[in-house]
């Protein structure tokens, strides 16, 4: 079970992910609504894993991922993309993302992906 930081600009998606991850026995140590807040919260909370939305205001998910990996190369980040944004995945791979979730998602598969990334 891991300590997880959820990053998404919509409260609905954060709440949904929080419920799914909590039901899988994970601790939600924090939430962030944009990339800049995500980077700050990562430094403060040092979570085991981050779920990171890609399209967000201010600093987007890819930039936040790069910033987090620059300070902690072992950071485990799962990117969340909307359907039709799968091309962003390649960019995320280059930037060090460990997993990918496409919205809309189903709880069991999200938990499986989180487990895989945490145990990798």
């Amino acid at each position, binding site marked *: 079970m891991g300590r997880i930081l959820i990053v998404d600009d919509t409260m609905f998606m954060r709440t949904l992910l929080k419920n799914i991850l909590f039901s899988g026995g994970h601790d939600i140590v924090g939430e962030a609504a944009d990339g800049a807040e995500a980077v700050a919260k990562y430094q403060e909370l040092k979570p085991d894993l981050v779920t990171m939305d890609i399209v967000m205001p201010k600093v987007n998910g890819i930039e936040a991922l790069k910033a987090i990996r620059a300070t902690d190369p072992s950071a485990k980040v799962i990117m969340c993309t909307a359907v039709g944004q799968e091309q962003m995945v390649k960019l995320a791979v280059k930037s060090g993302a460990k997993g990918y979730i496409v919205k809309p998602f*189903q709880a069991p598969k999200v938990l499986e992906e989180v487990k895989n990334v945490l145990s990798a």
Partner: protein
Amino acid sequence: MKMVPAKVEHEGRWVPTKVGIAEDRFRIEAPVDREIPYRSVVDLEEKKNQIIVAVGGDGETVYQIASVEKVLTVLKKFIITQASAYRLNAFFMSPAIRGGVLIQDARWEKGAIAVMKTGIWFVSQEKQVCIPLDEVASIELTSREIQGKDLDVVKIDHLVENEVVTSFVLCPLTTLQVLYNFLKEATSDTEVSEDLDPMTGQVAMLVYSGMDSSAIENMLKLSHRDLDTIYDKLISTGMAEVLYVRKEVQLTPKGVRYISESLKSPME
């Protein structure tokens, strides 16, 4: 013709028999005693350890054949590649996304696609994948980056044991358009024409994600009655179906007595 043991459904029961498989036809021995050219097959469905073959002609005849996987795999391959169906050579990736999670080792496979009456079949050297048309959730003509180029693909979302799976088909644009139109037509009864209000949309999204009623009530701060009203909207538009009805109960005097007595200390 190579004969292999199998069972066929005959007059309402499963009967042991032999099935012969040749290059252009197969044969079911007694009691069916029929030779069937693959080109006369109009539909193929699969269930666990069995296939259902519909043969056209004067009147459609359906044969249900059960056998070991190896035999069914060979038979399916001959049927899919020769049956009376809309067929095209294509690359496919199935599954590419499962439950919203990208499958990291998913790759494009070269093969054939056959669109039959009840399903789409993808066949390659290694795989035989069937997507029943009544399990198709959406079809979209979209583009995807393949080897550095943005290429047009057909994206098919379908249900596999209640999981939403996404598959992609890649072929020349003109063929792709034909395939897309055909699939759109074949799945037109699940076309969404209704527009949901934001709250109902959010509830639908949560159901999709696997949340149960109590989680949805908590997340959206809805009462049980409000959620039931929203469920009724989803059911009436054909977007949802009742899985089970949850009960709310209150204790009878007998139940109250049981609880009261169970809480008495042993000293009383």
